[in-house]
């Protein structure tokens, strides 16, 4: 371990890339976790994912660029990152992991650097290579993805202070946790959609029945009704509580 490390924050990811095992230990020792750099890397990850679909040469571009949709790209990059961090944190805090959410986030982001570099190399190469030379792209891909996986293992191992097998198992279970998170999220979204549709149905119904009513007024009324209902519930609950407290006091006396 080097104790004379005094790097600026932006140099850390590259230092870690050069020292996959020692680097994270140094990062931990120096407490040099930097959220800003991590966020920039995640943003780059997203940008590179977009470029991968749009700028990869025609010969090597197998994505459906006739209609480009950014939502799947967001899901594949940013949402994937967030669910990984949340899933890993949720799992490992239960199993003696020492990592905080912040540290996991930074370590994961730093591990993405080789992948991003590989993507950039591939985007440039794909515009210069013919179809027979696609092997080079595959080669770069395998190397960089493998390197990212290695860094990720090393990072998770360091941040939670696990041994190797614990890290592997925790990572596998993190993937399961991610799946669960995504399922719950989809469920929640569809549930809210139902609520929205219900409210919208009421809104249109009222609008059709009262042609004189303007739509903005109706929205105001509906918000007012909701607020009123909440207020009534609150007041009723407070009154109930007070009554209960009085009863208790009586008993105590």
């Amino acid at each position: 371990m080097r104790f004379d490390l005094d790097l600026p924050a932006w140099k850390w990811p590259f230092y870690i890339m050069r020292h996959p095992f020692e680097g994270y230990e140094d990062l931990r020792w120096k407490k040099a976790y930097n959220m800003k750099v991590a966020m920039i890397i995640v943003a780059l990850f997203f940008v590179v994912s977009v470029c991968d679909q749009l700028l990869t040469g025609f010969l090597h571009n197998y994505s459906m660029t006739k209609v480009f949709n950014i939502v799947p790209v967001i899901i594949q990059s940013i949402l994937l990152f967030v669910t990984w961090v949340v899933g890993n944190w949720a799992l490992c805090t239960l199993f003696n992991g020492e990592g905080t959410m912040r540290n996991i986030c930074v370590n994961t982001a730093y591990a993405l650097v080789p992948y991003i570099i590989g993507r950039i190399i591939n985007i440039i190469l794909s515009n210069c290579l013919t179809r027979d030379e696609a092997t080079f792209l595959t080669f770069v891909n395998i190397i960089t993805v493998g390197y990212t996986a290695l860094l990720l293992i090393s990072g998770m191992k360091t941040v939670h202070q696990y041994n190797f097998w614990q890290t592997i198992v925790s990572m596998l279970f993190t993937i399961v946790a991610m799946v669960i998170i995504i399922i719950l999220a989809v469920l929640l979204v569809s549930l809210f959609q139902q609520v929205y549709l219900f409210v919208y149905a009421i809104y249109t119904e009222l609008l059709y029945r009262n042609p004189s009513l303007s739509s903005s007024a109706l929205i105001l009324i509906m918000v007012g009704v909701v607020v009123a209902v909440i207020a009534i519930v609150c007041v009723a609950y407070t009154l109930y509580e007070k009554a209960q407290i009085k009863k208790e006091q009586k008993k105590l006396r």
Partner: protein
Amino acid sequence: MPSIKRIARRVVSAVLAAAMLCTGVVAYADEPYTGYNYDWWGDPVPSQNGYVVDKVISGLDIGCGQLTNPADLYFDDNEKLYIADSGYTGNYDTRDQKGRIVITDKDMNLITTVEYLDFSDKQEWLKEEEARFERGELTEERFQKEINVYFNNPTGVFVDDDNVYVADSENERVVQFTVDTDKSGNGCGKVVEVFTRPDATYYDAGTTFRPEKVLVDAAKNVYVCITTITRGAVVFSREGEFNGYYGANRVEKTGEVILNAFWKLIMTTEQIKRMKRSVPVELSNFDIDDDNFVYTVTKNKNSDTDVLKKMNSAGTNIFINLGYNEYSFGDPLIKYYRGTTYSSQICDVDVGPNGEINLLDLQTGRVFQYDDECTLMFIFGGSGDQKGTFTTVNAIESIDTNVYVLDSRKSTITIFKRTEFGSIVHEAMSLFNAGKYNEAMEPWNEVLRRDSNYWMAYIGLGNAYLNAKDYEAAMDNFYFQSRSGYSDAFKSWRMNFIRENFTLFAVIIIAIFVAIYVISSIRGKARLKKRAAADKILREQQKKEEG
């Protein structure tokens, strides 16, 4: 005095009114179907019609009385059209007399009809069969069917020179006859050979023999298509001996099949025997071209392997997907509409004079025309009750530039003629397939002028430019049209680019090397200096401690 303005206004309005009156209403008949094609992404895009309806012919137009459930069409070499009118019951008395063969010329004028058979040249065979029947080798039912002088539901017809082959399905035989006229001037068939159910032991005893379609190759072997047999077409030699099966489909690798293969690894032979067997889908129809290649189709809905096969005489498929999906036939998109699934069911195949392949889709009533390399050219027809649309299509034939489609429910034959656009595409395609890329350029440009969605035109132009060594234009045409073409063009373009700018590249590369060397040496020196300074400080500290 009216002002000039008013006069002008009156004159203009009068002229306009006259113009309106003179124009009238132009009535024009549009096709009841929209021509479409598929683009590089596999999405359907509208296209010009390559074929439009010429006329619709019924049995009454031919002059032979109404057709009933016609099942097959065939054009012979003399441009005579044979129609297997399978449900015809005209003046027959019993139930096992049904169907006839109607023969017309190219313009659908009646030549003759064949309603019964004449066994006078087959007396020896008759006697032999009778002897077999008396010995008990044939059942009475089978014997009666074999020697039936009438047809019973003839569903397939094929002509080789003068010999007409009819798949007489209810009579469980294929008859070969020559067309003759009897004393009263009616057409009759002089039987040459009768192909009946094989007695060979390797013809599966459980299967029935109900010939649906028939064809004959150059060696006069007779191929019989039977939909209850999944092992391919039944082949007879010209003497009527059973020669085995030809051209079975492959078993589609569905999840179930793979799972069964896995279970077979661990099961005992007894258990395997009891398992459901995975069998390939049956052949539905076939055709043969001038080079003796047999084309088979299957109309099974649940299978998309071996929908169309082009086989040599050994039964080897040429249109085989070797790991890629190079060939796909019919509509690749499966459509769900009001609770029903629509996917293509190819029920007939026809090979045209220039090797173009017409496939007939039972489900949608569409005709898919491919060139001989299986590139989709046109889609026409559809389902419906208008001219040019169908209810139940059965057979397709083509001659010259016309395509004939038989609808068994409507009992009509629809003749499609090629449009100008169709002719241009065909001309371009035949030049292109002959390798005459430069000659094909003009028609391809014309095609693009008429229909800029036409995918194949870009490929043709791209190849022409590639041939003319105009790589940039070739790349423009291949861009999002053909990966392999673009790759070839790009390779040459890149080579040229590097050659032209070689000095630039050389200078850049040398500059990079020099820069790397210089920077690394500077950094190395700096590092040495730093280390020396650190050592100095360390030494001074040590001295101090000692001192």
